[in-house]
């Protein structure tokens, strides 16, 4: 295979490598901003999504601040009808999906809904909904007196299933339980579905909710980490299509996903070393993308101040890309969002492109590392969007 570097150029004037995905729109839900344009502005201004969260729940929280949305109610965005039983993860995922569809020039019709699907990443679904349900069975002398209407909220594919119903998308519907790797794993799953011809378009992303459970789970594990980024919540969802098809239609993508590679190594401190593994996967992804390490402009890492994980990521990135490549730490703006983090890192890169034509064609990398030794990398090329594009 010829590894000749592709020069940055406007889309439509270069070869599209096999299996390249196009991103033709995206949506973000975070405490920082809701919506791609709003997120782009907020990132550009360097704002922080850190909020006072005291009193957000009946349960006491370990910390007073989080990158969470105390006033978020899905009905404010999608109406009251049909939304009242949604758990928070479902709400975040579905709203991300609807915003992504609002942001693309692709419309859902009866002609394409059978081949239009959804791939969402998660840690364990709505942990709060599940734990609340479990709690109901432990209280009182009638443990079976749980609410049947809420039962689907305990299942991890609830967000993807409800989003399919809401949007009428009958294509492939998948949920990838990837934890901190979920965003990249969902992208990789989507890449396979599209290259194999099972789907034409997919809403791809991941969502994580903030709850007393996630806050305490994190606190009990990591409170000794001094530089730890506070816990967050949110979702980012991308409209993903076959890049060749998009160009053949004369449409302009926001970005192309050139490669997604993942691997599985030892947990931090164990063999085989995940840092070396990440470096290896970055190298493979760049070769697949036909990009030289020196051409990588930025890397959006998942670093969030947990030293043993950040160390793996730093060593992997330094080894594969050198120490000079520009680091984008999305967690500083949106918090530690677990399964949503990889998608939010990608969204932060796309936000950088959206209003900046001078960055057209630049290549960036997204990296993720999980506490169980999982590593992931995506290679992305982005373009700006002229005002009004896709909104006509």
């Amino acid at each position, binding site marked *: 295979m010829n590894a000749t570097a592709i020069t940055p150029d406007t889309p439509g004037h270069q070869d599209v490598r096999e299996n390249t995905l196009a991103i033709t729109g995206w949506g973000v839900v975070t405490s920082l901003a809701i919506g791609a344009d709003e997120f782009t502005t907020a990132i550009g201004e360097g704002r922080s999504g850190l909020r006072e969260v005291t009193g957000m729940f009946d349960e006491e929280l370990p910390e007073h601040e989080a990158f969470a949305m105390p006033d978020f109610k899905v009905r404010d965005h999608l109406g009251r009808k049909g939304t009242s039983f949604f758990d928070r993860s479902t709400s975040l995922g579905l709203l991300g999906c609807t915003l992504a569809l609002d942001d693309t020039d692709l419309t859902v019709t009866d002609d394409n809904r059978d081949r239009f699907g959804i791939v969402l990443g998660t840690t364990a679904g709505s942990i709060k909904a599940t734990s609340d349900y479990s709690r109901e069975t432990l209280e009182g002398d009638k443990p079976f007196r749980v609410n049947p209407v809420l*039962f689907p909220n305990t299942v991890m594919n609830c967000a993807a299933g409800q989003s399919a119903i809401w949007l009428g998308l009958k294509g492939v*519907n998948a949920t990838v*339980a990837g934890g901190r790797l979920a965003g990249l794993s969902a992208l990789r799953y989507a890449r*396979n579905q599209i290259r194999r011809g099972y789907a034409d378009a997919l809403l791809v992303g991941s969502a994580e909710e903030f709850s007393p459970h996630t806050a305490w789970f994190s606190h009990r594990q990591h409170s000794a980490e001094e530089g730890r980024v506070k816990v967050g919540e949110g979702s980012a969802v991308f409209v993903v299509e076959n890049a060749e098809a998009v160009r053949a239609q004369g449409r302009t993508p926001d970005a192309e996903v050139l490669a997604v590679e993942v691997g599985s190594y030892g947990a931090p401190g164990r063999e085989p070393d995940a840092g070396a593994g990440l470096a290896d996967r970055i190298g493979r992804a760049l070769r697949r993308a036909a990009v030289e390490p020196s051409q990588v402009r930025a890397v959006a890492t998942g670093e969030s101040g947990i030293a043993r994980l950040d160390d793996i990521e730093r060593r992997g990135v330094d080894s594969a890309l050198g120490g000079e490549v520009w680091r984008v730490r999305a967690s500083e703006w949106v918090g530690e969002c677990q399964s949503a983090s990889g998608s939010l890192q990608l969204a932060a890169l796309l936000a950088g492109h959206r209003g900046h034509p001078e960055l057209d064609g630049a290549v960036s990398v997204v990296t993720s590392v999980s*506490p*169980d030794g999982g590593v992931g990398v995506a290679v992305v090329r982005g373009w700006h969007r002229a005002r009004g594009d896709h909104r006509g």
Partner: protein
Amino acid sequence: MNRRVVITGLGPVSSIGTGVTAFGQALRAGTSGISAISSFDSSGFPHYMAGEVLDFDPKALLRTLATSEWGRTSLFAAAAARLAVEDAGIDEKVLAGAAAGSSIGTTSGESQVIEALTAEWVHSGLDQITPAYAAQVPASRLAAAVNQELGLTGEAVTLSTACSASNYALGYAYDQIVTGDADYMIAGGADSVCRWAHAGFYRLGALTEKVCSPFDKDRSGILTGEGGAALFLESLESATERGAHIYAEVLGYGLNCDANHMVAPDPVSIAECMRRAHHNAGIAPADVDYICAHGTGTPANDAMEAQAVVEVFGTRPPPISSIKSMLGHTMGAASGFGAIASALAIDEGFLPPTTNYRTPDPELPAIDPVPNESRPAQPKVVQNNGFAFGGNNAITILGRVA
């Protein structure tokens, strides 16, 4: 690259037997894996039966993982994977050095871990929860456990598409080998019996009292079950080269979504999923010799599944049986056990029975459920159904290597 993909190792950890020999014998014999619930206190529940793996002994099955660091469902997944690799007879070092990974399906992931945390919350408060349990919550650990047990450095992906998840996992693993992204994959699924699911299915009116009897006129619901199911996949070329025993070939799969209702099955959508699976596998309905049913035993599922089968196959469809009559509903592992049963049906020449079958359902005249006793047969092509909450339909097609 467009490689043919075959199954050369099977790893069932189930309530009717652990390991391919025991599981195969139990399938043929129509053994019941149902017993009174022991993994949680079922007092207070009107129904108290489930398909638990009472003799699950992860320490005896696993060689690498420290069992104390992992939840029950991850241990099911890793143990099943270990058995599948042993059954495949591939050298462990060769495997660890190869492009190899795993895709594992689940409904509720580490449900017993979340229940343990919930109990701590109720009794002591969230501020007292055990950090080690919190670390075990991510469902991604199921596939991670498989890779770590076997020393695999390739992809480890957990697909949590509820009760059809193993078919999603098998389809994804198949694609990885077809395309050359991987040379070996472990595919399967795992789930554990848990209190909240027992309660939830009971309140949905979907939980039967003692006996699961799919396709029977008087069927009244599921029993929850558990276990780990794993299949070892490689290219036909690789299997032939190393002289491996080939159970079956993976011919293809189909996925779609009802986009209609979270819980109620949709026969039109299920029929469409069957057509997709046939199309992707390059077969016609007339090629299918046996259907391993989703067959949960609820009145609605079995009626809708039968309706879709008739829609696609006509009024004389192939035999269709439900191994959930023996195992209960093992949730995310269910279509993995279905795939193992399908591979054994092809390899050993029999159709597993639908046990507990007493009264034919006049509403399902086309259905031959292989009642109560396994049947000698030589199926060449088998369809393995998996449906789920969220309208997540997934069907895999296996065939004899020709």
